[in-house]
């Protein structure tokens, strides 16, 4: 793939997928603690989302950060707009804002609280 093709695929995913997560690894097998936490939050929110693993080609991350202006992974987009990374998604989840952004009802049952960052060191060391 050329860089242009990568960028076009990223733009397609951001534009067409209502809730789009760019992460390290997959929702079933996250490769970084920060990505794992965002998938846990999305799963707890009950929202349908798409995810793309940025690890297979370093150019994916470079192109994505170029498009979004955001240097870190994960990155969550809703309706084509960047919501933020792990810190922002976690803060919004804890304050209850996230459900509104995702367009879902707040979970009725107490969702598993995201682990403190200090207790969930990222699994992947580059």
């Amino acid at each position: 793939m050329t860089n242009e093709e990568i960028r076009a695929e990223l733009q397609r995913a951001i534009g067409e997928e209502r809730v789009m997560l760019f992460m390290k690894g997959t929702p079933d097998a996250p490769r970084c603690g920060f990505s794992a936490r965002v998938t846990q939050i999305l799963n707890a929110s009950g929202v349908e989302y798409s995810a793309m693993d940025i690890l297979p080609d370093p150019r994916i991350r470079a192109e994505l950060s170029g498009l979004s202006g955001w240097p870190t992974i994960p990155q969550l987009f809703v309706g084509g707009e960047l919501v933020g990374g792990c810190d922002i998604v976690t803060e919004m989840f804890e304050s209850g804002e996230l459900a509104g952004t995702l367009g879902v009802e707040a979970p009725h049952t107490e969702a598993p609280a995201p682990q403190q960052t200090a207790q969930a060191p990222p699994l992947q060391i580059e």
Partner: protein
Amino acid sequence: MPPLEEVKERIEQALPGARATVTDLTGGGDHLRAEVVYKGFAGLSRLEQHKLVYGVFEGEIGGPIHALSLKTVIPLAGNHGSSEDSGKGDSQ
């Protein structure tokens, strides 16, 4: 990899009047967390606040600094801001 003190100083120099508290999440020196109290965050979305801090380390995040976790806080008026003031959703 920049030591914690350097990260703190660079944030405080780039954002005049800001106060930063930088901690090392893993002990490895490359997964850092910064809590930044800065008047200039007022009126910005949380996303814009985080981008402002990330901008201080253009190109280094993902490189020498593997991860920089952020918490941004707008100080209360007449108070230089302690983290106790932060609450949630303070950027809104």
